[in-house]
């Protein structure tokens, strides 16, 4: 039974191709990020309940490669909402067969703008896969005051499969 499966699999590889044409050239992604604020706010560094929670979308049109746009919103210390926007540089990235991100290294420049505060971040992150569409990213960097930052994110990203209507 196992040999039959292997022969069938070999035949499949001979007669079919997994085509890149059916995948979009534009990247889309999502990032849910947690950033402990005690690194950012030394004066309250013992209050570990203060965290920065943000949700970002990533869009990477092919003409912008190796950079991608990033934007979203977040809340600082569960009190101060803000919007964020920036750019990330894809230092390296591997894709799986379904064109989802596998391993990746990224450097991002992100600005946060809230009603009472604003900040800028430069961070370098490394991602390891935990699902077919992405994984967990750990990033370190600095903010505009050069305070160190550390963030943990669940990020996913794909080059979408383009399912077309059958031609008549």
């Amino acid at each position: 039974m196992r040999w039959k499966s292997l022969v069938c699999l070999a035949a499949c590889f001979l007669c079919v191709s997994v085509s890149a044409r059916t995948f979009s050239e534009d990247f889309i992604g999502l990032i849910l990020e947690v950033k402990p604020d005690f690194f950012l706010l030394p004066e309250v560094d013992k209050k570990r309940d203060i965290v920065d929670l943000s949700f970002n979308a990533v869009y990477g049109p092919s003409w912008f490669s190796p950079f991608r746009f990033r934007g979203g919103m977040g809340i600082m210390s569960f009190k101060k909402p803000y919007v964020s926007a920036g750019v990330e540089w894809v230092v390296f990235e591997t894709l799986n067969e379904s064109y989802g991100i596998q391993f990746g290294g990224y450097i991002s420049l992100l600005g946060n703008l809230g009603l009472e505060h604003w900040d800028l971040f430069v961070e370098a992150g490394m991602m390891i896969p935990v699902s077919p569409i992405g994984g967990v990213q750990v990033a370190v960097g600095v903010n505009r005051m050069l305070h160190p930052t550390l963030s943990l994110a669940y990020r996913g990203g794909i080059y979408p499969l383009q399912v077309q209507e059958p031609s008549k």
Partner: protein
Amino acid sequence: MKKFVLLLVFVALVLVFSSCSMLFKTADGNLGYFPNIIGTPVGKFEASQELWFIIDPILFPMSRPHENLDKMIGPEVFARGGAFAKNLEISYGFTIWDFVITYFVPFVGRGTISVSGEAFSNF
């Protein structure tokens, strides 16, 4: 303690290798390679089916369209009056909705198998 470490290693391996390769096959064994076969083209086709899974489609698939490609290819060929198909292209990936579902729903994911090709009749 040792069992716990082994369990952790297993979970880590499952997660790290959770994006391994996809197996494609047919249930009826009619996916073959016949380079010299000739016929009259009767039309191109494309079909797609959703593939639901837990954690990973290889490890815990909830549906198996990738192992039953005949159920996607056959009806399309026969609907066009064809007898066989050539120029098959089989893709597995995520549409935007697949991606959103897989990202937000814990452990459960959805992908899409897409098959396209050209149907031929014997004469």
